[in-house]
């Protein structure tokens, strides 16, 4: 079970689709045995990450999301076509919240896309 396939998702870069993404993320986390608390945090984190990358997103752009799944943990990368070529603003409230919810945060611009990634893991102890 160690070599789980990654999951990729492409959505319109619009706020309305963030809820779809949150639901999908919650579904994946449930498969990885995250606790309800973890899932709740993850949903919030995904929302904040989207707020960061969708800020200044190109109209008609794409929101691409990648999930690297592992046993009891996942790394989420959220990227959106950016109109202003700026890196996600790490001085924002959204970023502050994200640092509290996820680990190993990264923010950057790759090929005209604003991207934010972070890792989360379940609070179920592996041995149990």
């Amino acid at each position, binding site marked *: 079970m160690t070599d789980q396939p990654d999951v990729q998702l492409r959505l319109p870069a619009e*706020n309305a689709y963030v809820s779809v993404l949150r639901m999908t993320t919650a579904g994946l986390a449930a*498969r990885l*045995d995250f606790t309800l608390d973890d899932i709740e945090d993850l949903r919030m984190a995904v929302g904040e990450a989207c707020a960061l990358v969708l*800020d200044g997103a190109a109209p008609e752009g794409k929101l691409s999301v990648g999930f690297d799944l592992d046993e009891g943990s996942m790394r989420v990368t959220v990227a959106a076509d950016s109109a202003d070529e700026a890196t996600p603003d790490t001085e924002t*409230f959204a970023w*502050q919240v994200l640092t509290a919810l996820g680990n190993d945060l990264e923010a950057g611009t790759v090929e005209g896309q604003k991207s934010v990634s972070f890792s989360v893991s379940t609070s*179920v102890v592996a041995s149990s």
Partner: protein
Amino acid sequence: MSSPLSRAGDIRTTKEASAELFAALAVAEDDGDRSRLRDDLVRLHLPLVEHCARRFQNRGEPLDDLVQVGTIGLIKAVDRFDAERGVEFSTYATPTIVGEIKRYFRDKGWAIRVPRRLQELRMSIGAATSELSQQLGRAPTPREIAGRLGITVEEVMEGVESANAYSTLSLDAGDNSDDGVSTMLDSLGEDDEALEHVEIRESIKPLLEALPPREKRILLLRFFRGMTQSQIAAEIGVSQMHVSRLLSRTLESLREGLEAG
């Protein structure tokens, strides 16, 4: 506050006036007279409607609206009332008025109500969650809840999802409901756009200070002590779902505050 119906003297006059009007209505020949008498009867019994509507106050609907639908019930009652039966009009009209108000709540609630199946699912998930949290010393996973309830992980997620939908909608309903429906999601992007121009740290301090003590405490426990929502729930003595809701609301209000600043 002092409805005319609460004073005995007025009740008698209302009764008498009502009986007279109905008697006149029964023998009225032309349409003009009938319609005038009908109007008088409706006007005469409006305090009864108000009285009934008050019983449904504090249920999230403006009293004016309730009086309005109650009045529809009253008009129906006036039209259907048969004085020959020897029943007081107020006795006859009250169930019709109340029925109309209840129907209003039923129809109104329909659009936002979660199906009964999901409501029950949500409740059993809530119960299983608190039980398992105690046994495990942490929040349970959906799989653990599914095992306890004998349902699938998907069904658990469906229940959790419906709980979120429920809270989102009730948050919306609480606020300015008449200038268009906007969900929390709708405001996310826009809020952050404005945040670019804000000196974040400095402007958030007064906002944090202004938070109610409980909200401030939850925020502190969550983001500075790194406690989970379940732990906070236990500490504060409310449900995890409530903590989740309070957190979302607090974050949202901070966001709004920052935007306004």
